[in-house]
């Protein structure tokens, strides 16, 4: 059913740290790798090594510049489904293929019921849904539903593929409905942001803004100023080395 379930206590989601993300695209790559064999498999991958590569990805990494002049920052920005609490992509679906799970809040597509009308992709402001032209159905991030509950995986690996692979630990997975969970505390400590709050889809995922840049030196024991070494070494080298320097500089 595309009417929304009553709000659940459990809100599984991601927290993405824009301070530490290095923009390596590993999350997107591992996401594609896992999901092309997972719940929504296969993900189309047309002309992958040619001039016009195209296909479905659940994760896309943008790079933005925020601020102006010397104080501007480069911010790498991974974008995926935010598993909204009131997702319009679910309610606009005419067939019931799009749904939100009551038990954990994950938004999924039942590919057997999808007619491929693409209206859900219009209703999503985050660009989370991509159409599979081969299968004629819409696909989206499943929050790796086939990993997080997968008892065949070691417990430490029961996190979404993007979280498991992030080399900078910029991605965190957990229950954002529980104020005492580690990621809820992280959001509280770092002023985690909701994207496009104006549209009121109540996304579950949060983005941690970059920390303010350090303008003062830390107390590392080093002097605040370093003396130039060039003149010193030339003098210290004596007449012979100056002669060698002159000969070699010719």
């Amino acid at each position: 059913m595309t009417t929304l379930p009553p709000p659940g206590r459990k809100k599984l989601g991601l927290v993405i740290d824009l301070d530490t993300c290095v923009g390596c695209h590993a999350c997107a790559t591992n996401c594609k790798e896992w999901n092309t064999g997972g719940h929504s498999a296969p993900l189309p991958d047309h002309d992958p090594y040619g001039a016009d590569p195209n296909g479905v990805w659940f994760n896309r990494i943008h790079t933005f510049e925020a601020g102006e002049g010397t104080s501007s920052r480069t911010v790498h920005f991974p974008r995926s489904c935010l598993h909204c609490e009131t997702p319009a992509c679910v309610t606009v679906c005419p067939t019931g293929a799009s749904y939100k799970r009551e038990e954990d809040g994950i938004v999924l597509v039942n590919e057997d019921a999808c007619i491929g009308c693409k209206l859900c992709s219009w209703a999503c402001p985050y660009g989370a849904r991509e159409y599979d032209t081969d299968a004629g159905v819409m696909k989206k991030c499943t929050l790796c539903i086939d990993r997080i509950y997968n008892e065949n995986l070691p417990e430490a690996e029961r996190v979404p593929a993007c979280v498991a692979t992030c080399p900078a630990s910029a991605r965190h997975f957990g229950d954002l409905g529980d104020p005492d969970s580690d990621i809820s505390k992280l959001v509280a400590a770092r002023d985690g942001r909701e994207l496009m709050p104006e549209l009121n889809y109540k996304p579950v995922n949060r983005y941690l803004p970059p920390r303010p840049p350090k303008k003062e030196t830390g107390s590392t024991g080093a002097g605040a100023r370093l003396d130039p070494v060039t003149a010193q070494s030339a003098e210290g080298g004596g007449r012979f080395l100056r002669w060698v320097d002159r000969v070699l500089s010719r």
Partner: protein
Amino acid sequence: MHPAYSVIFFTTASGAGYGLLALMAIFGILDGVPADPWFGAIGLGLGTALVTGGLLSSTFHLGHPERAWRAYTQWKSSWLSREGVLATATYVPLALTAWGWIVEGSLDGAFGFFAAFLAILCILTVHATGMIYATLRTIHAWHNRMTVPGYLCFAWLTGGMWFQVLCQIFGYQSVWTATICMAPTVAVWLVKRKYWGSIERTPGPVTRESATGLEGMGPVRLLDPPTTTENFVQREMGYHIARKHALSLRRIAWFTYFLIPFALIVSTTELDPWIAIPGAVLAAISVSVSAVIERWLFFAEAKHAVMLYYGAEAA
């Protein structure tokens, strides 16, 4: 938004069809036109053909047309589903009205009731079509009070002009039929003026800063897009039309939905059928062209919030 031809054809053809069917029903009930079986057969037949052709073409852009029946199930939440239910339900009073008009030669009693029901369902179906677009908060231009009136007025305008053509051919034209097909030229003009004025004046609620959660860090701009080639989201949502082309298309639309049909109807309706019929046909063709231009612009000018992630200045 990418203007898909199947959706443009669907909404303009079915709009004209529902407009024509509603006017046939209303004029039939009120004895504005006689219950002539041939007139009924051609009028209701043309309306049915436009509606059915439009509905069939709307399935062409589906990935799985064979599952289209599933779209009847989610009427509780989805305007697209409601549109499907209403469009299908319309065939019931349509068949009963056609029976009364064509076979019984009368719209009295129960048949009048069916015709009234037909008119109401036609209006509700077009309303549902408009609501599909008007409820999308992601597209600021469409999330607009003038979107649904735009759909309704264009259905009235295009259906009304074809209704007038049939009335002229059968000799049933009157000051009422002429008035009812000219009124929407003014209505469309006012509605589209308001629509275009409002999309010019009011910026969308979302900014690149709020889209990225980077408010307070200064202006945000795209440095690197995620892909080297256009992906699905960019192809579907990233259609862009140059402003000067949009403005000239708006002017062409104004000529074809207002000036040309208004002038033709005013100047030819009272004349000899040899002039009045071609005049009405030209007016009907003109408004049909205007509906396609307007619908194409409705898509091409609409900016989707997701494009803020791809460097759009505003959405």
